[in-house]
């Protein structure tokens, strides 16, 4: 987990960054909201993440096998792994771009596009299946008009299947925005979705 305070310090909050001959002034501490605001009002500019990315690379590049921790921290800070960060990571770790992209695409957790506001991961493994996870999945598909991997057009909610959350003694289970919910019923699932849609 990146320390939010350290992130802020790494950035000095107000900073003019020069990258590949272009300079840009920006001020923020929380990249995730910054990115979202930017994308809603103007063109995405992945360059703006680079100070944070360089800060992460600086801290990790000496430790052996650091690629996964680096990718986790970048995703934690930005919400996804922007394509513009790949050359920076590759350069810092002395890897080819292909090696970095290969790792990003191999692991289910890493995203290369901004996530929805809410991420709902319904467990679809054996234990939850034996307690009706498939019916819950059908309920989600029907209510949200999405498939199992779908994201709503308004960017509010993404569905992702997950195979085991370690809650098997109280199946079925799901994870919503990082919080685990178990002993699910159709009603509780509806309540959770209601809460997501109210906040939208």
């Amino acid at each position, binding site marked *: 987990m990146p320390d939010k305070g350290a992130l802020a310090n790494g950035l000095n909050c107000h900073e003019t960054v020069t990258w590949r001959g272009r300079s840009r002034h920006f001020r923020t501490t929380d990249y995730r909201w910054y990115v979202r605001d930017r994308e809603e009002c103007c063109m995405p500019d992945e360059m703006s993440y680079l100070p944070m990315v360089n800060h992460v690379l600086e801290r990790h590049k000496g430790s052996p*096998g650091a690629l996964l921790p680096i990718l986790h921290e970048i995703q934690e800070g930005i919400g996804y792994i922007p394509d513009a960060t790949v050359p920076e990571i590759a350069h810092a770790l002395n890897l080819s771009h292909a090696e970095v992209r290969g790792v990003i695409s191999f692991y289910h957790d890493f995203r290369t596009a901004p996530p929805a506001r809410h991420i709902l991961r319904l467990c679809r493994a*054996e234990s939850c299946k034996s307690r009706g996870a498939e019916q819950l999945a059908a309920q989600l598909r029907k209510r949200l008009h999405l498939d199992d991997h779908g994201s709503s057009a308004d960017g509010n909610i993404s569905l992702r299947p997950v195979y085991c959350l*370690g809650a098997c*003694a109280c199946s079925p289970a799901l994870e919503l925005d990082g919080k685990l919910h*178990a002993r699910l019923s159709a009603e509780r699932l509806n309540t959770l979705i209601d809460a997501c849609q109210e906040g939208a």
Partner: protein
Amino acid sequence: MMTHLYLPVDSLARAVGSDEVAVALASEARKRNLPLDLHHTSSRGLYWLEPLLEMDTPQGRIGFGPLTAEDVPGVLDALQGEPSSHPLALGLVEELPYLKSQQRLLFARAGITQPLSLDDYRSHGGFEGLTRAIAVGGEQTATEVFDSGLRGRGGAAFPAGIKWRTVRGTPAAQKYIVCNADEGDSGTFADRMLMEGDPFLLIEGMAIAGITVGASYGYIYVRSEYPQAISTLREALDIARAAGYLGADVGGSGLAFDMEVRVGAGAYICGEETALLDSLEGKRGIVRAKPPIPALQGLFGQPTLVHNVLTLASVPIILAKGAQFYRDYGMGRSTGTMPFQLAGNIRHGGLVERAFGLTLRELVEDYGGGTASGRPLKAAQVGGPLGTWVPPEHFDTPLDYEAFAAIGAMLGHGGVVVADDTLDMAHMARFAMQFCAEESCGKCTPCRIGSTRGMEVIDRLLAAPDQGKRTEQAIVLKDLCDTLQYGSLCALGGMSAFPVTSALKYFPADFGLQASEAEQ
């Protein structure tokens, strides 16, 4: 008088409402001006009773559960008056038959201690194993582990002592201890419970391993689906380091050992030890061909001791109480205790730690209380998504590595997923192939391509218009399963065939086949 209450902070207890109960307790106690001391402990593993609130009494801790926030005022009334009058009162928790009949060695502290309290850990036998390991020295420690008969708890059941001797006997400038905490099997949660509830036990086990085999650094590779285990372990590492149990001089031994937590990224295959090592090295989690075995050339090409969480966590008690004490539990070549995990459609889901040798029926019927739905039991899948579906006629098999191998099944990590008669085994067989296709690392052909072909064959089998066509596809499917089982590089491909062939063998009707056709 101050009332001492205990409520678990285990992530699953929280997922079923223990946080809400804690908030309600605090506000209700304030309203009543009642002095409460709420201790946040680990979970007992009696998950069907969670959230389980316990209170100190002169006789021992009494329990209430499963609670909701709405039950809190009533429970406080009962605590101030006659506790047993409450409808959710359970009496003395340690007298509950589910718990009392267990043999808890690994989970001895579960539900009793606070996960991040070093004082709690020490006052319940913590670090006795490390102290003794330092006192007797590396050679004797490795011998004790060997003599205890401890076998790897991750699934393959390889004798731990042999790995320890191999790594110890291999000269190298740098060796590593790697803890495989990528507990991806559905139906298993013992690793998660241990890491969230008793992190110092794992740290102690790894420190003993480190100073014994001559490794100065360790990694715990935890799956990203367990965020609470990750944060608890990281805090526990800082506490242990500050107390001198990690660092340049481990517990006064003069030997150095330190470790860190690394987080997986949602790849099931990284639970396979060589894929895990590649992932730790910052690569795609691709399975390596063996030999060389990791004990000789593992992480970064160095000798590496790779063990599951439960294997490493078994070491402190073996050292503290001696190899003979541990050997006295279990049967045959399966010595010690195993934390079995009851999951799926089961009335009393939770953790049952018992010596090897009790039968699957005792586990599912006596402890589990049958299906949660109340419908007839159809089968139990033992050993995770790659395990065999065991039909009730085999439920009298003792839970022992060899006895399970004899019926074509495996114990794996000790997870048992129970299903009632509504679960469609043809669907589960297709899911096993689909899961293998999604999670295959892609290195070997049977797994990478065979799994997708397997899905297609099952689809054709289910869509076939007549018996003849169905039988034809069943033969192709069995042939394909043979290829997977004997031709794959690792257990993912090799064992993905098990749930398919067992479903086909025991539940042919779900595939629209007659029993005689499935036998062919």
